[in-house]
């Protein structure tokens, strides 16, 4: 497994198209920074919409496992002023968030960037475990440095999956009859609401961890602005 992984990396580094690429190519930097206002407004307007019925499960059968039934999200986390205002923002910016995501994924696949960013279980599981062990101080030294370590690849790959599920569950809530097959995939309309809110929680968790870690490694922030070195 190990040799397979390093072979893939060797192939990548001899690919002439990739030799001059910066640590963070322009396309990735752009989509990264465009995401920030979009995600903030989507999350804020989503929570404002949720405030109109801050519960999970249908009327008369709210889910007993959800601990925050009928508790509104805090005012500071909401955006859009009222239900209709938040809906206008949410459904307006959703298009741009999806567009940004689709352009990112096309670039991600076509440029070969996926090779050094995507979590490939065969290559990265060992590294992720070692990095985790290092963080919890079970290991004295971190695994050998790579473009990203296994744990980073796992986090950055997971959040792509969360985002895709977030968009699909959102569509299921928006059109549970016209897109009934999508709603069915999430266990119906009320199931899709659970998944939609759950993915927001996971994406928020990712962002918080991401913020802590980049503040601990400020060079990563600089690279996301300037692109970093070519090579």
């Amino acid at each position, binding site marked *: 497994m190990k040799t397979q992984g390093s072979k893939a990396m060797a192939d990548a580094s001899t690919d002439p198209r990739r030799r001059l690429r910066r640590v963070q190519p322009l396309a990735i930097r752009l989509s990264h920074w465009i995401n920030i206002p979009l995600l903030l407004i989507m999350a804020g307007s989503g929570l404002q919409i949720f405030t109109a019925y801050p519960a999970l499960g249908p009327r008369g059968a709210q889910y007993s496992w959800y601990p925050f039934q009928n508790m509104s999200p805090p005012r500071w986390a909401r955006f859009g002023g009222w239900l209709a205002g938040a809906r206008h923002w949410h459904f307006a910016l959703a298009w741009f968030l999806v567009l940004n995501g689709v352009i990112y994924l096309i670039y991600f696949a076509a440029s070969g960037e996926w090779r050094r960013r995507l979590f490939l279980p065969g290559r990265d599981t060992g590294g992720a475990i070692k990095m985790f062990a290092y963080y919890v101080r079970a290991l004295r030294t971190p695994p050998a440095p790579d473009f990203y370590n296994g744990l980073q690849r796992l986090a950055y790959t997971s959040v792509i999956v969360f985002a895709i599920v977030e968009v699909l569950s959102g569509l299921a809530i*928006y059109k549970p009859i*016209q*897109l009934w097959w999508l709603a069915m995939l999430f266990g119906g309309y009320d199931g899709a609401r659970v998944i939609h809110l759950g993915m927001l929680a996971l994406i928020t968790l990712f962002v918080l961890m991401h913020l802590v870690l980049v503040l601990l490694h400020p060079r990563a922030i600089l690279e996301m602005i300037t692109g970093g070195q070519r090579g």
Partner: protein
Amino acid sequence: MGRVVTRRKLLLSVGAATLLAGCEKSPAVRFFLQTMDEWNQKMQAALFSPARLAPELPPSDATPEEAFPSYFISEEMPFPPANWSLKVGGLVAKPGLLSLDDLKRTPRTNLRVRHHCVEGWSAVAAWHGVQVSEIAKMAGLDPRVRFVEFKSFDSNYWSSWDLESALHPQTILAYGMNGHPLYPDHGAPLRLYSPVKLGYKSVKYLTEVNFLLNPTGGYWENQGYEWFAGV
């Protein structure tokens, strides 16, 4: 499908949304949200399939009736005038009045479907009544009719619909709910009911159905809630 909503109506509705939101939006933001709302309503109309039926649900899915929310906009529960009848008008060959008995003699449609409220909750009930398409057939529509207006005796609560959604086989004028006659809190003696629109489009306490050339907004729609509101 083209002009589902007139530009003026949109300007009115989003303008009202801004006022009610109580926040000063810049003209650019307002223009952006208006444009996106217009686009979204076009997309919704394009996605709407006149033949796609909301799934019929088993009795075990029904929401306990006391848990099925209901509201009216009048100060007190609206009761119908002594000799209530439904006025059918607009561009039709045979305008006129229909009594409840007339309606009950018309072929009956029964549905048990999920209701989707703009607030985010869902609930299930059975509804019994007459298809709007049946009323249209009886009245004889002028081929130029594109919209249907539904008016009530609940402080003039009203809504207007695109013709396609109004003629959907599950869009009915309901005089019964869960096997009994409609109770006053759910719009007695007659209400509009459809699983293909958000709840606020289903006008209760009906007095008039008008087949028209142009949309006439609606109670919530004119305050900023989207006009198409398909699910």
